[in-house]
């Protein structure tokens, strides 16, 4: 498509054509039937679009808009605080548990080895399940399909 025609057409719609551009535009569409057809088609679609507007939601929706954002920001901060607290707490508890387990002289070494392997296996299993879940949710083509 003629780039000059597109620019002139857009300027025409905006009433921004200068006298000389207006003359140039007129000459273009009168000398080329294809351009004239394009002009008429664009005019028609502009006319349809002019008749429509986007639906405005209810006043309540606007009233609650900022509150919705504020609540989500506040909850985000709350979740970050909870997560940091939980990591510190459970980290401390885990270190204490491991320390007391290592220093425990009453438990036979074979039981300690067994428990260590059990914990290691459980951690690998949790890590594997989480990784699978994460990748499935990212790449599942059929997640929209109702199962």
């Amino acid at each position, binding site marked *: *498509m003629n*780039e000059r025609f*597109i*620019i002139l*057409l*857009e300027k025409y719609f905006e009433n921004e054509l200068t006298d000389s551009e207006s003359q140039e535009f007129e000459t273009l569409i009168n000398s080329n039937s294809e351009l004239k057809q*394009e002009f008429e*088609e*664009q005019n*028609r*679609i*502009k006319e*349809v*679009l*002019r*008749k*429509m*507007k*986007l*639906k405005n*939601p209810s006043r309540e*929706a*606007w009233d609650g*808009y*900022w509150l*919705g*954002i*504020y609540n*989500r*920001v506040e909850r*985000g901060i709350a979740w970050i605080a909870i997560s940091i607290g939980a990591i510190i707490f459970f980290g401390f508890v885990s270190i204490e548990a491991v320390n007391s387990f290592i220093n425990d002289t009453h438990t036979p070494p074979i039981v300690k080895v067994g428990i260590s392997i059990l914990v290691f296996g459980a951690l690998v299993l949790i890590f594997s399940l989480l990784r699978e879940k994460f990748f499935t949710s990212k790449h599942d083509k059929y997640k*929209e399909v109702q199962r």
Partner: protein
Amino acid sequence: MMDNKISAGTISKKKMKEFEVLVKDNMKRAYFSALGFLGSHDAAMDVSQEAFIRAYRNFNKYDTKRNFFTWYYKILRNLCLNFIRDNKNRNEEYFFESRKYEDSRNNPEQNLEEKEELEMLHDAINQLEPEDREIIILREFEGYSYEEISEMLNLPVGTVMSRLFYARKKLAEKMKRLME
């Protein structure tokens, strides 16, 4: 258009009030831009709010010399495109209405005609690629100037005009096909 400039940097509690003003100044434009992309009231509300939250978190990256909405729009656009990618089977509602609805309410024939035209336009717009839909919404419904769209989409003004022309052309073709 209102110049939305507040000092950059990490927003403290007292800055929250200023951010509230910023949100309230831009929420309608944000919602309607998202609505044009997503075609659903709930999704547009959710995504435009999420974009404001991302803007809040990244406010230190905002260059105060630039218009807030132009910067915000880039966040919103990415979220909308991600939403479309992740929700291909989403339900779209009728998100247009006739400007003349009030006048034609007492004229059932005209009302029916407008309803049909509205449905056809809605279906045709929904069949467009998100980028074509976006440029039509920004220019024809939101009334942004070519320069503003050029800044929002990081495109030269000439390219904006050209993309708009082809988007309208595609829309006309879709409507023609629906009329057949």
